[in-house]
């Protein structure tokens, strides 16, 4: 069993490093100008549209006043993953979408970029001065095992560690951060930012036990024996494939992971046309990444109409701005290989029933993921779609002392949802222990 509290290093020369940030960091001067625009609304709509309910007007006011550490504290108290959420949150659909400036001059406050400024600068100040933003409480004699080192577990573990509980995160792979490290579009966040955040979160006292697969290397039951509670944060492990495979066919998540984490990864030479199957945000991400990497023609093939795509409007607009094309009403049938190489993808046009082929050198499948078997080891009740059922106010599963959060309970949503789950579950555990103590 490898126990480590230090994050593993990333490979050098990763392809993702060639992507520039779509929303680059502010200098303090820039951040202050933007922060000074905030109206400080009463009962602010932006707060209501943040799943972690960060007091946004407060932290923006703190940036404006020059109290950057205070701003970061305001953010982290509600969302320990404030640094990555600042980069990856679909703010257009959340806080920024609710900004009252949308109704006036159409220039909403750039809340995500301000949050990135506050969290980055405060963490840099911590490193430079050694003055920590948060100090863990004295040990309370409780232990929690967290399965999977993605955003939900990291948030939960940080809250628990700060409250004085022992938090051990079991991670099957070597790298913490989950999809924040391996799956976020590189123009939003680089893997190294995710690892830096994971390291910061762990530095409050949680432990990362990397390279240990719960269910294989250690049984779920033994965790329940050893720990006061278990948190399941395993995400979605099973990638849907539509039974399409062969050379040139990728699961979109695997391709993104390779771009982000593999040393010297490059697209195969001669990839000029790519087809992406799907209509969600992962499809938009990989389509945009392929276009940004120089693939001449990137086509998204979606089985229904544009309006029915589950991708956020701003993500589709973003992909389109790089020349990504859309073909609607295409049901994938098969892939065509010639001379051992991918030649085309075959579809049925659902409106006409006709079969067509889209010539391509690369096919990326972004048709969703399912909860893997790992989550089911605990014997928890599942929802109809296979996700783990939890009590909505505590994130407690149907099994005693077992909690869950992140994509494995919601089927694949945002990092900010996972961060909220982690905090809520941690608070529920702490409340339960307190009740036990008072009761007994």
């Amino acid at each position: 069993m490898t126990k480590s509290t230090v994050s593993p290093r990333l490979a050098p020369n990763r392809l993702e490093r060639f992507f520039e940030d779509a929303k680059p960091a502010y200098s303090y001067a820039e951040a202050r100008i933007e922060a000074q625009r905030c109206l400080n609304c009463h009962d602010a709509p932006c707060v209501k549209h943040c799943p972690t309910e960060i007091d946004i007007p407060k932290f923006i006011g703190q940036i404006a006043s020059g109290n950057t550490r205070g701003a970061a504290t305001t953010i982290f108290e509600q969302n320990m993953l404030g640094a990555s959420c600042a980069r990856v949150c679909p703010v257009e659909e959340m806080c920024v979408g609710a900004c009252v400036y949308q109704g006036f001059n159409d220039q909403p406050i750039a809340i995500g970029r301000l949050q990135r400024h506050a969290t980055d600068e405060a963490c840099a100040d911590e490193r430079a001065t050694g003055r920590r933003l948060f100090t863990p409480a004295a040990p309370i004699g409780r232990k929690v095992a967290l399965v999977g080192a993605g955003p939900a577990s990291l948030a939960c573990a940080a809250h628990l560690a700060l409250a004085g509980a022992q938090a051990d995160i079991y991670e099957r792979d070597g790298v913490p951060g989950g999809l924040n490290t391996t799956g976020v579009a590189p123009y939003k966040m680089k893997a190294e930012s995710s690892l830096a955040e994971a390291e910061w979160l762990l530095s409050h006292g949680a432990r990362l036990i990397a390279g240990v697969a719960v269910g294989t290397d250690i049984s779920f039951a033994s965790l329940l024996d050893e720990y006061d509670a278990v948190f399941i944060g395993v995400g979605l492990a099973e990638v849907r494939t539509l039974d399409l495979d062969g050379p040139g066919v990728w699961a979109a998540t695997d391709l993104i992971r390779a771009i982000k984490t593999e040393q010297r990864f490059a697209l195969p030479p001669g990839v000029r046309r790519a087809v992406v199957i799907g209509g969600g945000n992962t499809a938009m991400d990989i389509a945009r990444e392929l276009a940004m990497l120089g693939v001449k023609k990137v086509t998204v093939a979606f089985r229904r109409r544009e309006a029915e795509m589950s991708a956020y409007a701003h993500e589709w607009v973003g992909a389109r701005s790089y020349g990504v094309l859309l073909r609607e009403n295409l049901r994938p049938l098969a892939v065509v290989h010639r001379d051992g190489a991918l030649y085309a993808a075959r579809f049925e046009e659902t409106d006409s029933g006709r079969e067509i082929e889209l010539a391509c050198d690369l096919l990326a499948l972004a048709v969703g993921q399912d909860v893997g078997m790992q989550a089911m080891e605990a014997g928890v009740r599942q929802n109809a779609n296979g996700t783990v059922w939890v009590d909505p106010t505590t994130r407690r599963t149907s099994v005693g002392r077992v909690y869950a959060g992140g994509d494995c309970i919601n089927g694949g949503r945002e990092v900010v949802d996972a961060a909220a789950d982690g905090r809520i579950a941690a608070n529920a555990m702490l409340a339960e222990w307190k009740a036990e103590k008072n009761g007994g």
Partner: protein
Amino acid sequence: MADLRINFCGIESPNPYWLASGPPTNSGEQVMRAFDAGWGGAVWKTLGDPIVNVNSRFGAMDIAGAKVAGFTNIELITDRPLAVNFEEMAAVKKRYPDRALIASLMVESRSEWREIIRRSEDAGCDGIELNFGCPHGMCERGMGSAVGQEPRVLAEITSWAREFSSIPVLVKLTPNVGDILEPGLAAVGSGADGLSLINTIKSVIGVDLERMTPLPAVSGEGTHGGYCGPAVKPIALHMVGALSRDARIAAPLSAIGGVTTWRDAAEFLALGAASIQVCTAVMHKGYRIIEDLVEGLSEFLDANGMASVGELSGRATPNFLEWGDLDLNYRVVADIDADACIGCQLCYTACLDGAHQCIHINQAPCHAWHGEPDHGQGVRARVANPVEHEAPAQSDARVPWVDEAECIGCNLCELVCPVPGCITMREVSVDTRRQSWNERVRGTAL
């Protein structure tokens, strides 16, 4: 096109805008460029015994991103030889005969005043301005505001100047006094042809918290400076208005204090000014601002059927009263335009905490979503995060409403509203009989 020309106690200029005495009028080369840009006149950087300055000299106060909302300086009068200044002034006047050229002067003895006034006239100046206002450095030597704060000294020196000068004498007043009428009356009583105000206000613009030094810093130490810029305009407006409405002050007023736009200038003119002097705005944005100062004022006069600057001058003065003469029976209430409202609810917070608790928001469905109405208590609800996201709320669901019966018409909501025109103050007629406090006390109106 309205006629922008003015005749200020005999000093003519093609428009009412003069550069105030200060860094922008330090040299002939600068003033010539200013006149090329279109300035109607210039009051030359104050002349006297050349001094030695310190580094640094300026400080500024920014407010919420607005640069140089307030400005301060500890620079003294000219640091160049008098002969050079007068030589350049003569050259400027020769090249720009239609512009007003005024010498700002500051010396001590009667003989010095006689000498410097003679040299100003010889240089071709159209008038002189006695600098009785500078509140830093020079006042420690018995000049500047040390004179302006002593009506008897001010009157004596003014009478000397009136005796020696064959051209108009303007007296520049310091605002660092309890009542601006005292120096104003002293100046006109001793022969001043016109008054310029305000000079700068005693101030400390800020403190450097790292070096623990008042600003501007001179080798880790600081002193008080003279405050000016947009932030002082209200103080200057009051003082100009106070002199303008006093029947004993017949001399024309040259207004100084935070003029940045033609609208500022129009306000000073309306409250009784006859010419406008500008310094800080030029230090911030350059001589080129004269273009819109002229065009904007001209457009304003045309749009309001005024043929000349003179028609605007003093128009608002009769309406500038003491509090005791205001109508106690006049009433307005706030009116919120629901279509324009963006739902920030700043008016609600302001009225609740800073005024009279008569704006309410209890219809907002956001509270239902949170599961807790706030009962108008202004407390942000903190409840467990719901699992589902909500679509952004419609802003009209957040429109506050005014309890008109309770509204005391204070304006605060209108002032904090970020959307121009969204909140207006609507007149309501309750009692049409006018009655002021003074009338009530005298019992004359009942």
